[in-house]
């Protein structure tokens, strides 16, 4: 041998988290999805196991979103029907799972009541067989009312519920413990706060394998590298045995990307940036591809074509590699 491959010996691996519960397990899902478990840096099959491929989810809102017109051809017909929308994501666009964002709960949007929100969640659950991620509206006060209500109404479904932050983690964690759900622990691009929140949540006795972390990631061109580095550090930490950084990572790709100018600016206004439709898809896909290299386990996408590109990329990256010793 002219060279001998260098394989890191890691002492630990990323926790696995099971999303969804089938009938036998106390829920109603057709199947469950397991994320995490990797014992190597992203896709380095030659030195450790990557037992579960990263998964991609599409976003569904409980209210009609004010999204860019280039998304309307894909979802316009179902914007006002979350259940149908979710179904379309799974059946037509091959999303691994669905994210329901309860935007309508926001007092500034529709101020939907916790009960109304719970109902939408149940409707979506009834429409699809995949595991479900439920996100609050982003108003911490309201979310700490809505999310526990959702948790209760869907007891046993093993939803992935979020986002819990340092301010409101207690009520959401308590609800997840009682009703057997998983939680998303969100931190503001800060590995220490990320870890601290994990400690606080596990100290409330929610097992570490029911936590997924959202380290907050920006879109390509808007500080993507900060989140990228934090994720890399978290993954290295996890592999080196830091249990409080070893949670699977979820990234809110679509949401961030579609706030960027590059995704939205029209081809006419910005001819030097090329065609808007393709540009936005690639902006989203490239952001996701970068985050996959940092260790993302769940990617929340918005554009079906971006989702397809990312799925393809994941498939290629999951091809095993090895070096002889």
């Amino acid at each position, binding site marked *: 041998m*002219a060279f001998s*491959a260098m394989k890191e010996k890691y002492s630990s691996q990323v926790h696995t988290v099971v999303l969804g519960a089938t009938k036998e397990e106390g829920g109603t899902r057709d199947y469950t999805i397991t994320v995490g478990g990797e014992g190597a840096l992203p896709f380095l099959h030659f030195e450790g196991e990557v037992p579960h491929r990263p998964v991609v989810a599409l976003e569904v809102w409980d209210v009609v979103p004010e999204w860019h017109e280039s998304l309307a051809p894909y979802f316009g017909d179902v914007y006002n029907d979350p259940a149908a929308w979710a179904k379309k994501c799974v059946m037509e666009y091959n999303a691994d799972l669905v994210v329901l964002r309860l935007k309508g709960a926001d007092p500034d949007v529709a101020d939907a009541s916790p009960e109304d929100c719970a109902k939408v969640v149940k409707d979506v659950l009834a429409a699809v067989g995949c595991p479900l991620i439920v996100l609050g509206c982003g108003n911490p006060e309201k979310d700490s009312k809505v999310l526990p209500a959702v948790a209760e109404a869907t007891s046993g479904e093993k939803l992935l519920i979020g986002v819990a932050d340092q301010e409101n983690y207690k009520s959401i964690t308590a609800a997840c413990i009682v009703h057997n759900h998983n939680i998303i622990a969100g931190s503001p691009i800060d590995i220490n706060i990320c870890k601290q929140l994990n400690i606080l949540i596990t100290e409330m006795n929610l097992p570490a394998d029911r936590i997924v972390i959202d380290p907050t990631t920006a879109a390509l061109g808007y500080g993507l590298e900060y989140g990228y580095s934090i994720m890399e550090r978290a993954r290295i930490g996890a592999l080196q045995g830091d249990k409080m950084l070893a949670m699977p990572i979820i990234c809110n790709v679509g949401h961030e990307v579609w706030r960027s100018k*590059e995704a939205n600016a029209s081809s006419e206004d910005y001819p030097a940036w090329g065609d808007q439709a393709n540009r936005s*898809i*690639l902006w989203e896909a490239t952001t996701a591809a970068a985050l996959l290299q940092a260790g993302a386990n769940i990617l929340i996408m918005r554009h079906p074509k971006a989702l397809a590109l990312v799925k393809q*990329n994941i498939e290629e*990256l999951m091809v095993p590699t090895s070096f002889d010793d």
Partner: protein
Amino acid sequence: MALTGLEIFKQLPKTNCKDCGHPTCLAFAMALASGKTSLDKCPHISEEAKETLGAASAPPIALVKVGTGDSVVELGDETELFRHDKRFYHPTAIAVLVEDTENIADRVAEINDLNFDRVGLHYEIDMVALQCVSGNVDTFKAAAEQVAANTNKAMVLICEDVAVMEAAATAVADRKPLLYAATNDNYEAMTALAQKLECPLAVKGNGLDNLAELVDKITKLGYKELVLDSGNRETSQVLADLTQIRRLAVRKRFRTFGYPAMTFTSKDDPHEEVVQASVYVAKYAGLVVVKASKKEEILPLLTWRQNLYTDPQKPIQVEAKAVAIGDVTPDSPVYITTNFSLTYYIVEGEVESSKIPAYIVPVNTDGISVLTAWAAGKLTGEAIAKALEENDMESKVNHKTLVLPGYVAVLSGSTEEATGWKVLVGPREAAGITKFARENFA
């Protein structure tokens, strides 16, 4: 393995004579360990120490230059596996592939046009990769000349037939193109050619093991201006190969792989290609050759590269520009903070959740937080005055009252003096903003 500061220190004279420009030998040793100085700066070092330290402090990956003048592309000379450990230095070069049978002038014009301006930065494609598909000496040579005539960009010449390569390479040798590639079959002649023309040479292996053998053979021939290609093209294998090359060079100081690495995208769909290339940009490619050449395809790739190669040691800053939160009116309050992004975003979040529209004016403090900036004399009455003026706040609002962070209440006097505005001392912690805003502005 790299030596630690203390290990280097043990080999130094320990006289603290300061001739190296550092206050102590230990300071010099630590600077050397982190690559901030070079061994020759200490005139008193013993021959013996020079030898041991020289080997250890040599860069793990050679710097290879392709092209000339302003368009020279520097590859390699990286020291890290992860950008957060220090930083990445030489951004992955992106070359767009052109075949020698195409209309060269048109294609090159299209590539020249791949330059972008966004957020105050300018990006462009670095190189043109010309591939010989004709198999014809004259066609390839003419195409190379045409590329050279139509762009200043650095070039990659792709052809494994040495005779064909020789004609084209000789014709544009003054442009120092990267010759692609020396292989098992042609390496002697190709190396001789590169050596003769003093052009950098790509080495294409058949997997890493073969690549290592080939590199050793070529370096034995006395040539070291190399760029490495494992020859694999499947995404996960290329990722593995690039990772091994970088790791062995940086962590094990494996000299054979101490050169920049390159690869090609293999996808036909340009969208898939861009996604594939983003993987290689993230993980250690010094050069990626792509076929995609539309603006909307190249812009995301170049943006990702720019993001990845920023210096993570620099404090994260936001633009020192006034930001309107919510539906501001001329009556809206004006909050002062610094342009340290963490500070800024916390303030922004709190102002947002106060539900009272307001302006936030981040003062340029080189990205440091309020108290530190005050301590270092970067957040002063004058600095605030300058920020108000540059953002033309006087015309944006119809009042002259600003909210000063509670921690720097001591600046009230000097701020009122320098700005002519009235100071309202805000809460010390951003968390108090909502309460403060409701009490003062509701």
